[in-house]
């Protein structure tokens, strides 16, 4: 229903690499990769300045750690031929991933494109554990999570697994990326516990312009995320692109209006959040619904997430940057509304939804949502609990108070150098071999 059937039909007709498709997918891959640095700014602006570098590094580090894990193993588990639950290991260590056609684009490019999705999905989770999780265990967590949670769910929906067979519509990753990350974030926040200052003092965003910059760059990158999920430069890509253009506009307007009527002010953080929620919600629907439906979907998507965020901040649940309310609830809304608005008139490879007389599609969508919620929750819980047996997940209260930038990274985001003393390197001038100046005694 989603990517692979489309691929297979294309494969029958044209087994060769199509230059136009390849060109668009090259651009799309770069666009989606940019979303992770964009997320770093979005999240980085929302935290206190003493944790801003740590928060941004949580996203940037995913570019390295998850990317490598993806290439070495997770890609194969998600997309190599396997059973209904998990892919095989035939493409592990990138074996058999060459320049031959996968659909109409080179196989290596397909692997890279899908890798950018794995990276941003893992990075999304970080928003729930910022300002308190130790950096090392976080890296281990996202590596394990990519292999044991992301890869199987990606296989279920896109790699020929059981949800794909049942006809769940997920154009660009509402289930695989957003519900998956949102639920995992919720569980991670519960396992980690609240920040020591949470509910005791105001924890405010330290740089709202960063938040807006991140939201803008996320939107830009999302054209590759949704438009590229057509895996070709065709009509479908045009539709998904346009829906990605329209839906967040509606969410932005509704969100700001909600803000205005509730508090009397249109906030910038609210506007940025609204854009991201709109993007999340349109993701599963992008290539299946009409542009008018996309506007309606975007407008509707604002409500559940908006009130989820308002409600969450009054609870003892410290999902610090509202990853669950944003991506979990937003993804869920989008996935269900896909079952409402989907139309074969716009995508023959898709299906009709409730409004086109196929109420069953909503139930099918609910099945996809429910199964990924359960799997993500259990998977994340087990990984974090097992990790907790061998290491400490949380930073010490002292280090939380001092800020994770200094304690985890030995850097500060905004330092003026006052009171700092330059430590001269132990070796001599550049070029001179160190041992020539400081002879080392031979240890026996």
């Amino acid at each position, binding site marked *: 229903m989603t990517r692979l059937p489309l691929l297979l039909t294309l494969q029958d007709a044209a087994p060769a690499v199509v230059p136009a498709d390849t060109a668009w997918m090259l651009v799309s891959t770069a666009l989606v990769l940019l979303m992770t640095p964009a997320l770093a700014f979005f999240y980085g602006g929302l935290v206190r300045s003493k944790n801003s570098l740590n928060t941004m590094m949580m996203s940037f580090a995913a570019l390295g750690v998850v990317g490598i894990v993806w290439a070495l193993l997770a890609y194969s588990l998600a997309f190599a031929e396997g059973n209904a639950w998990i892919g095989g290991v035939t493409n592990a260590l990138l074996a058999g991933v060459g320049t031959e056609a996968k659909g109409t684009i080179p196989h290596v490019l397909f692997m890279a494109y899908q890798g950018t999705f794995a990276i941003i999905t893992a990075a999304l989770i970080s928003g729930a554990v910022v300002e308190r999780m130790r950096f090392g265990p976080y890296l281990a967590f996202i590596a394990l999570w990519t292999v044991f949670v992301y890869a199987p769910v990606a296989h279920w929906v896109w790699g020929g697994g059981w949800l794909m067979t049942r006809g769940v519509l997920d154009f660009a990753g509402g289930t695989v990326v957003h519900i998956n990350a949102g639920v995992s974030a919720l569980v991670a926040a519960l396992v980690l516990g609240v920040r020591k200052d949470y509910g005791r*003092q105001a924890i405010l965003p330290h740089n709202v312009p960063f938040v807006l910059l991140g939201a803008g760059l996320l939107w830009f990158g999302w054209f590759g995320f949704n438009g590229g999920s057509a895996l070709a430069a065709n009509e479908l890509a045009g539709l998904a692109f346009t829906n990605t253009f329209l839906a967040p506009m509606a969410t932005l307007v509704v969100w700001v209006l909600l803000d205005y009527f509730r508090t009397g002010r249109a906030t910038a953080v609210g506007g940025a959040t609204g854009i991201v929620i709109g993007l999340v919600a349109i993701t599963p629907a992008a290539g299946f619904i009409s542009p008018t439906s996309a506007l309606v979907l975007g407008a509707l998507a604002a409500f559940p997430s908006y009130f989820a965020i308002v409600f969450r901040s009054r609870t003892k649940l410290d999902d610090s940057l509202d990853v669950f309310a944003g991506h979990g609830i937003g993804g869920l809304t989008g996935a269900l509304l896909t079952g409402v608005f989907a139309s074969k008139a716009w995508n023959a490879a898709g299906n009709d939804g409730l409004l086109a007389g196929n109420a069953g599609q909503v139930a099918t969508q609910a099945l996809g949502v429910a199964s990924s919620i359960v799997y993500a929750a259990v998977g994340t819980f087990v990984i974090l609990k097992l990790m907790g047996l061998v290491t400490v997940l949380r930073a010490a209260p002292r280090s939380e*108070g001092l800020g994770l930038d*200094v304690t985890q990274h030995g850097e500060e985001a905004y330092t003026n150098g006052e009171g700092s003393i330059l*430590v001269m390197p132990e070796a001599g001038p550049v070029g001179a071999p160190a041992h020539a100046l400081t002879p080392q005694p031979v240890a026996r």
Partner: protein
Amino acid sequence: MKLIVAIIRPDRLNEVLEALYRAEVTGLTVSRVLGHGGETDRVETYRGTTVKMELQEKVRLEIGVSEPFVDVTVRAILTSARTGEVGDGKVFVLDVNQVHRIRTGERDELAVTPTELVES
């Protein structure tokens, strides 16, 4: 009356303010300062440049109090600001010659809040 000057860790400020509020000490001035109290130097690295942060960020509280409140205030700060590690800061209690409240022109004991210790 006395002027109490306390240098504390920035991350204990919230606890100290809570403790002072509970002790009914109102009226204080807070400023961000840099200082060094003998704690281990923090080392930071930016590309090839390694620096020792000799001066740490601290917060300075200045509180003018009437005589009955000196001990209460000092105790509140001591218990709330302590982490037990080097660098927790200091509390200084200074004599004050005169205090004037600008709004009313009241002076000395009358100008620092509160004036009487309410036994509870």
